[in-house]
């Protein structure tokens, strides 16, 4: 075993120790108030097996799988250093020994998407390093069929750009956790879109650290929930440096007995002057038994900053429904049209046309289930 590998082992051991001492999060922890992981996992806990990954690697992107041998310097530098050391990131660090890592070399503009599929259950950890001036499109498709926890660390060097389109289509009974952590250097841009149909319990945490001046993060998401699905999106955007920008637009449609959760915290640190953050979360509830909990939160410790946030939960607009129906559009078609119109704004945030169309198809396909009455 070489020295650098030992460093990784140590980070994993420390993460495992934190998991052990803190235990599974419970609902008395403020950040886990709406999502009862302990209850959903029961006695089972997370299996330590790795889920199955399928990767399409674009030309020029370096891949590393941790199965022994020499650990490249870029892996040693960043592995476990971006993750926020909370339960989910620690668990995936600690238990996925055979993690994947990708490096986009400086200046490389990758046109093909880095295509990553994950299915099954267990713990998975991934590190992506995008070097200075490089850019890449990350396409992720996650399909959990048991208890899954995925940790993703993203490093953006100066002027780097990563666009992520993340889609989950879990089995109904899955407990699907994800923890995405992004660290952006000066001038780096991260764009993430997250589409989910939920599962028994699903949660996607997104932690963004805008550490370099002028770095940006733009988050958007669509949730279409039916049956008794639960989908939690929890974001924490930290404006660390000056002139940083962030936007968030999350739209949820919740029908049946489903529950949509959005917790969005924005912290503007001391010295992050001239930063600008916007945050919008909206949910439409179909029927009387669905629920949405939207919790925007702003913590500002700097001067001369712009922050705007809004959250709204509502029903489909009765006036609009009547208007469409009076013009001959059936009630079901009118509802569908209004729901698509509501969601579309968030889909527009996806720049890549092909991926936008894919996400849109998935959202449209999920709508009938969300529109079904709860049993």
């Amino acid at each position: 075993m070489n020295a650098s590998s030992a460093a990784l082992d140590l980070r994993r051991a420390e993460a495992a120790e934190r998991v052990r001492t803190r235990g599974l999060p419970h609902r008395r922890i403020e950040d886990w108030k709406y999502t009862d992981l302990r209850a959903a996992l029961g006695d089972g806990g997370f299996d330590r097996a790795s889920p199955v990954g399928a990767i399409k690697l674009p030309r020029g992107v370096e891949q590393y799988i941790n199965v022994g041998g020499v650990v490249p310097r870029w892996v040693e530098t960043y592995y476990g250093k971006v993750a926020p050391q909370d339960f989910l990131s620690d668990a995936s660090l600690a238990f996925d020994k055979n993690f994947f890592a990708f490096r986009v070399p400086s200046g490389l503009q990758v046109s093909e998407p880095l295509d990553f599929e994950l299915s099954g259950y267990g713990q998975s950890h991934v590190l992506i390093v995008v070097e200075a001036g490089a850019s890449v499109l990350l396409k992720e498709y996650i399909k959990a069929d048991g208890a899954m926890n995925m940790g993703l660390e993203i490093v953006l060097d100066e002027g780097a750009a990563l666009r992520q389109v993340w889609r989950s289509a879990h089995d109904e009974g899955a407990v699907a956790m994800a923890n995405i952590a992004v660290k952006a250097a000066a001038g780096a841009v991260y764009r993430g879109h997250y589409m989910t149909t939920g599962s028994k319990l699903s949660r996607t945490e997104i932690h963004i650290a805008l550490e370099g001046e002028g770095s940006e993060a733009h988050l958007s998401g669509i949730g279409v929930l039916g049956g008794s699905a639960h989908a939690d999106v929890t974001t924490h955007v930290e404006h660390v440096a000056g002139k940083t920008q962030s936007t968030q637009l999350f739209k949820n449609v919740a029908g049946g007995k489903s529950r949509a959760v959005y917790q969005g915290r924005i912290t503007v640190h001391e010295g992050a002057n001239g930063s600008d953050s916007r945050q919008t979360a909206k949910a439409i509830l179909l029927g009387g038994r669905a629920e949405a909990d939207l919790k925007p939160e702003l913590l500002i410790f700097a001067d001369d900053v712009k922050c705007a946030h809004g959250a709204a939960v509502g029903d489909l607009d009765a006036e609009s429904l009547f208007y469409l129906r009076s013009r001959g559009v059936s009630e079901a078609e009118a509802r569908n049209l209004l729901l698509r119109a509501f969601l579309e704004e968030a889909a527009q945030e996806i720049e890549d046309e092909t991926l936008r169309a894919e996400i849109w198809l998935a959202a449209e396909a999920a709508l009938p289930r969300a529109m079904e009455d709860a049993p």
Partner: protein
Amino acid sequence: MLEIENLHVTADGKHILKGLSLSLGAGEVHAIMGPNGSGKSTLSYVLAGREGYEITEGRILYQGEDLTAMKPEERAAKGIFLAMQYPVEIPGVTTMNFLKTALNAQRRARGESEYDAMSVLKLVRQKAAALKIGEEMLRRALNVGFSGGEKKRLEILQMALFEPRLAILDETDSGLDIDALKLVAEGVNELRAPDRAMLVITHYQRLLAYIVPDRVHVLADGRIVKEGGKELAEELEAGGYAEVLKGAA
């Protein structure tokens, strides 16, 4: 075409229409005038089938069929069109897409073949020109950011496109300047036809100077209290509702 017999309607527990009777034949244009709160909008909503209005007595026959149990979309497919006082803004649905969806939904319900996108576009363009509705407006989200006049013109465009048998115009003149009013009235007059009936609901006489009605009914406190020819509208304009209603009592 339309027979309303002794219609009583309540909404939110309030008795609003109190025995309204009205008969409208094919090819006729009737005006319903009345002060605020007389039940004009309630009548238009009840005819279009909006939820929240309960018919407690009487009936509405449209082409010999009882309307009461029909859904709004069924009424539309059967040729009833309500041009609304306040057309709703729907972000995210382009005007053109809405027109195509609505037109094809009506055709489908009647067992007619649907139009493809190109045919709808041609049809809409042809009808839109006369109403001075440009391509740019059709590309925008439905009624979003439209001026009052643009919204009303779009209502009339829909009327031209759907070719209803019975058109109800609810306060179509409200919020229009004189040029817009003329444009809208011309659009409506173009659609007068022997097999089409129109019910023009308005507070003021000014619209009726351009859309000349065959009959005028005065609605007050949920009932028709006076009827007459087009001159009745002028009488109302000159004397005001109080004067005319005093005469009717």
